[in-house]
């Protein structure tokens, strides 16, 4: 691993960006954007996380195998979320049926 020393100026710069982004996410939460609120919140969080990983955690200056580990972790998390949700979002819910069987269970 080639030793790369990041200067404190970069750290402070990253810190300030993180502060700005934190403020941005709070402000954005007070505006009603419908389904986009969650999208914006997660997008900002991901930008912040990326900054931390790249600079605070030196991933930018790390060997390729470190990048592979990071990508694998994110990818596997995505598999879990995406494939599980693929079941739930494509289910058909027969609401009339629900009411009838609920009545039966109540009886």
């Amino acid at each position, binding site marked *: 691993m080639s030793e790369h020393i990041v200067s404190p100026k970069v750290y402070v710069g990253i810190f300030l960006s993180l502060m700005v982004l934190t403020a941005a996410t709070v402000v954005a939460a007070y505006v009603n954007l419908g389904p986009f609120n969650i999208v914006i919140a997660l997008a900002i969080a991901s930008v912040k996380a990326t900054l931390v990983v790249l600079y605070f955690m030196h991933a930018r200056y790390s060997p390729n*195998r470190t990048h592979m580990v990071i990508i*694998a*972790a994110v990818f*596997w998390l995505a*598999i*879990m979320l995406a*494939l*599980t949700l*693929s*079941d*739930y*979002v*494509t*289910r*058909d819910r027969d609401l009339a049926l629900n009411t009838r069987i609920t009545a039966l269970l109540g009886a």
Partner: protein
Amino acid sequence: MDTPTSTRSATASVHKIPKEHYLNSSYGIRSWLLTTDHKRIALLYLFSVTFFFFVGGIFATIIRIHLMTPQGFLVTPETYNKLFTMHGVAMIFFFLIPSIPAVLGNFLVPLMIGAKDLAFPKINLLSWYIYLIGGCFVLYSFSTGGLDTGWTFYTPLSSVYSNSAVTPAVLGIFINGFSSILTGLNFVVTVHTMRAPGMTWFRLPLFVWAQYATSIIFILGTPVIAITLLLVGLERMFHLGFFNPALGGDPILFQHLFWFYSHPAVYIMILPAMGVISEIIPTFARKPIFGYSFIAGSSIAIAVIGFFVWAHHMFLTGESVYAALAFSFLSYLVAIPSAVKVFNWTSTLYKGSISWDTPMLYALGFIGLFLIGGLTGLFLACLGLDIHIHDTYFVVAHFHYIMVGGAVMGYLGGIHFWWPKISGRLYPESLARVAAIVLFIGFNLTFFPQFILGYLGMPRRYHSYPPEFQVLNVMSTAGASILALGYLLPMIYLVWSLKYGAVAGPNPWPATGLEWKTDSPPPTENFLVTPEVTWEPYDFETRPDLELDHIVAGKLPAPAHGDD
């Protein structure tokens, strides 16, 4: 069966056990319990997984005896349910998952890549202690009220309705998970950073590739089951409702999270066994393995694609039809790399110089049983068929063919193959061959009838069954008694050989791997001089150090085709 093909008898007498090796470098119970030597830790694991294998085996024996009559005459329904649950938990989490990785992997990975130890020896010891603590929790659960949820812990049965000791059991499995994770972490780092000079990625033994693939599953799958079972424990302790429909939770979500790990966990069990077979076959066929890169690649492919198929356990839970189609499709994809391995093993035998030594018999048995186990997986992945055979004895037979027929045959084959390296001595060959054959026959007698039972509709986890199923159940029980004998035999003669076995010498077979370039048993630091690898894997042709005269009448080595 007794063919005088072994080279050992001629050379065995000239060898001596080295003066100092890892077993006698220090003495006393402390030198074992505080050891950081990967070889000693492997032996600690060997004892503990064997213990759990017998715990699980006793449960299995009672289950099979109980099922001899339709009403079941031995135990009450409560006890029966506890027996099959505890059998599953002991066997899966405390025997099969750690067996090959933690015993053979621990012993061999550093030796095979020419390292002095794993990258983190203390963490390696820590994993064993974590395993023990997890094991104690589970044994505590077994002995105080038992466990009756099925090893699958489906909610809300496990989280609300079961009156057995679920909480200590899930905590035990949670804790044990970290043992797997740390073992996997150690292997990955070791393979990346500790390889000897000249040991490039494509010179790695296929066993190491398999361990690497397994470690991927350990690292990225195990944490999910850990957190999921922790949530079940919390539900029970604090009346939470993550998976409890009465409180708004979703029991199907539990199944998703559970199988996200537990399906790949099947590959944790079978991949290392495939790795063992990939070592045994070229050694006893005395030729390079056919399609090295395809076998190595298929291990990684199985580990990765294995994570995309889990919901095929859930086709009949009311899963979305679209998701079911996707998961069935992906499940068929994961069958391909397994098929590739089998074809390559078979081709390796072609024009080989095949000996019938015990490890090779296990390899032969493995191929046969894994074929049946793997091919019946195609039945279960088939959506239309799964409607009928899901949750029947067909499934029971299928996964026993994979886990017992595949993983345990691979494990025992590996133990026999590397026993001379581990102990420095040879086991009695003819007795070992008999045991391998007894195991193979007993296994098939036990589990093949269960395929038919399953297709006839006998559901799994039944403590009593309709009388028309009795004949097949009795056959299965009869087979199990033969199988039990097959497991006891190696136990006896392996222990016997520790003292009375012939001295093996560094490379009795001979085999090409780096682990055979050092003494048997190896010294604590593995290699007195760091080895340098200059040869391709499984190459017998250009290895004068193996002391094989390769110009033999009728078998002139042909020019190798393909390139290295």
